[in-house]
């Protein structure tokens, strides 16, 4: 098996750390060889807060993935998130010299650099600049301007940036394992690669990756990324609310949320209670089902309404979402969440997982792994482009 074909995605999540080993097939498909995961500690809201502990967990997950896939992992693609990740759209322009009448690939690079020539906070670094459209002499909808005639080349980019030090924390965590770092990828962008197909991207879709610590979102329309971002509220918040509302320990609250929790109100029988059993199976406290669901419902409703407001803030992207909303990530498994999303966004909603994969079915059919599998897919798309150096290489060289 050629080593070049092995692609590994690592997601350092708030609730779990997940490693997916994939094999890139010549026909463009991906075969999942193995998945390693470990419960995450030392990570809050998608960001590493306790370095040593987090690193141990990363190591555990990597070892498991190596065992399962029987592959020696040398380099990984790392997913990042956190409330510091922000994005905006910007247009770059470049004038083609008169003596040169054909637009070259070099000009495309120049225009990319021009689009990045905006001020972001000093401490921030660029994570992605994702091409939206080219314009040649003001004519829009150009997909590939190379070889075209023109005097002015412009391009819209969706630029995602975040605080450099926090991104480097994740990178350092990987390097000290030690592993090579291929690239850092924004979680939602990675997840969208496998959750959506090209048709859905064209129609317009919103991907909500609701994880343990954060909710990452990305909007596709006309096949390109229009908006993306992070809201640092996730499943952990629900657990915390439940724990505080019912006065039970976090671990118990988490179990209760996963096993019994639902966002649908009015579904429980009046006075219906859930018996909490302690570790030895003895009966303990009783909680009312409706109370539990109310706590969860209020949190999710608030979070989704907040997301909706955020999406409406700049432009009304919600009108462009022909394919609807796609929810993924661990928290998307919450019962009834799709109906709530549907109600709030007034759009068809699907709970999805990674599509178009072969190999371990159990892995890619779980929404928890969307991001990690997405990283592999992203890696596959990027890997053949060895010709030019992707800017992320600087992390590898600087550290």
């Amino acid at each position, binding site marked *: 098996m050629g080593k070049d074909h092995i692609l590994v995605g690592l997601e350092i999540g708030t609730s779990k750390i997940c490693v997916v080993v994939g094999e890139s097939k010549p026909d463009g498909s991906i075969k999942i060889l193995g998945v390693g995961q470990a419960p995450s500690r030392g990570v*809050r*809201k998608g960001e590493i807060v306790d370095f040593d502990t987090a690193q141990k967990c990363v190591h555990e997950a990597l070892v498991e993935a190596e065992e399962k896939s029987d592959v020696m992992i040398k380099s990984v693609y790392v997913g990042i998130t956190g409330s510091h990740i922000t994005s905006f759209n910007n247009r770059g322009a470049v004038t083609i010299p008169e003596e040169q009448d054909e637009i070259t690939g070099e000009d495309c690079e120049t225009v990319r650099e021009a689009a990045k020539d905006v001020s972001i906070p000093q401490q921030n670094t660029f994570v992605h600049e994702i091409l939206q459209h080219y314009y040649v002499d003001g004519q829009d909808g150009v997909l590939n301007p190379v070889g075209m005639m023109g005097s002015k080349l412009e391009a819209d980019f969706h630029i995602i940036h975040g605080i450099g030090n926090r991104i480097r924390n994740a990178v350092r965590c990987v390097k000290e394992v030690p592993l090579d770092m291929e690239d850092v990828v924004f979680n939602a962008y990675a997840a969208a690669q496998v959750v959506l197909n090209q048709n859905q991207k064209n129609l317009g879709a919103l991907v909500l990756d609701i994880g343990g610590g954060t909710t990452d979102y990305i909007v596709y329309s006309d096949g390109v990324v229009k908006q993306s971002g992070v809201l640092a*509220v996730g499943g952990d*918040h629900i*657990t*915390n609310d439940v*724990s505080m*509302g019912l006065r039970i320990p976090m671990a118990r609250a988490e179990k209760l949320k996963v096993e019994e929790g639902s966002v649908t109100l009015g579904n429980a029988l009046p006075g219906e209670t859930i018996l909490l059993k302690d570790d030895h199976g003895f009966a303990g406290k009783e909680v009312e089902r409706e109370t539990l669901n109310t706590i969860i419902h209020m*949190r999710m409703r*608030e979070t989704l309404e907040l997301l909706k407001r955020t999406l409406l803030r700049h432009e009304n992207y919600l009108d462009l979402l022909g394919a609807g909303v796609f929810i993924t990530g661990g928290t998307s498994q919450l019962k009834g969440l799709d109906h709530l999303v549907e109600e709030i966004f007034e759009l068809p909603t699907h709970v999805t997982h990674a599509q178009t994969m072969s190999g371990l079915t159990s892995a890619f059919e779980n929404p928890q792994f969307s991001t990690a599998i997405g990283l592999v897919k992203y890696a596959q798309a990027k890997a053949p482009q060895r010709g030019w150096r992707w800017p992320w290489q600087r992390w590898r060289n600087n550290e």
Partner: protein
Amino acid sequence: MIDLNRSYHLVPQTNDAVKIKIIGLGGAGSNALDRILLDGIDDAELVAMNSDVQSLTSSVANEKVQLGREATRGLGAGGDPEVGFAAAEEAMEEIRAALDGAGLIFLCAGLGGGTGSGAAPLVASLAKEHGALVVVFATMPFSFEGKRRAAQAHEALAALQAYADAVICFENDTMGDAVSPKAGIHQAFAAADETISQSVRAISQLFARPGILRIGFDELRAALSGNNARCLFGYGEAEGDNRAHDALALALKNPLMDRGRMLHEAHNLVVNVAGGPDMTLAEVQILMEELGRHLGDETHILFGAAVDPKMGPRLGVTLLSSTQIGVQTTEAAAPVETPAKIVRRRAPELVQSEPEAEEIEEIEEIEEVDEPEEASEPLRQESRAPRPKHGARPPKAAPEMLPAGAAKMEPKQETLQFEAVTRGRFEKSEPTIVDGHDLDVPTFLRQNVRVK
């Protein structure tokens, strides 16, 4: 763009400038005044007013008004607000003369003592008569100074809130917290003076600095308008690469801001950014974006930017706002009468000046002269709410009245106190604040939904 800024600076703006006067009232007031002068301030006249001649002579202010030549004979008010009031009343003409021509008056007073609590409402009302915008910087006594002083301070504060356009209230206790426990007591007081000085300077500089986007007098008035406004104030200054972020963080750290948690309730917010000629638009954008996270959707931002070569490499952010305490407004308006009440009672009498000592013994001595006569005239306000139990009021200082009075004012004394919110698991992590809501606090708690 830099050249343009310079040319702005060259234009002398003194003619249409609002005349600013800073008045230090009483001992604490003149301390603050000295501090302001030491820190340096332009375009403002400083006036010290005190009944204690000794303290007055040592003041560095260029204009001085002695209160109560007859009433106290150059001694202090002895911690009795009524003596303080009588003293100010006596010097009313002099006070008027000193206030004349000012468009913006800052009144600094330490409440709780005699001159500060007694004279401040009267001076504020006189200033208001002049049509000036009156901003009061009041310090509340330390809790160890005793309940009596606290009650006097609360009463005076209520009166001030009726006259002043804005009352910026500093609690010594809170400011003392900022000082390390080992620091001397003078340092705790100095910290209070410093905060006042900073705020006065920041607000006066809103007008004094040549602004690209100038915050006008009218805008400040709009932000602070309304009686009983609770003031939110923050000022931060920083330099270095990340100065926009640092300055804002500092401004939000101000004890009067409570880390921006109050901000989302604000209707109007004055934001002024001042920096040297190298201040960039990007910095301002970053700053405003960060600030925006703390604000509600409906907050009206009054933005000003000023370039001041004196700032050098530093960048300063001033946040100023007031929140209307909707329901409590009427209640808070009730104590308007306090100063009038002081007038009605008690003819000026000599008081031995044991500076701020035996006040407690004086409680019983107070007699009630209960006729609303001319003496209360300067204080009469159209807005004064008629009180049913006008004549039947118990003597002000009657012991059982004190706790009641204090309790009544409690709601608006909450300026710096907030109920402890629980964030559970997220206690130690970076808060997620969106639109002024701390999302780490359970939703049902924030929306006040009861769960069993």
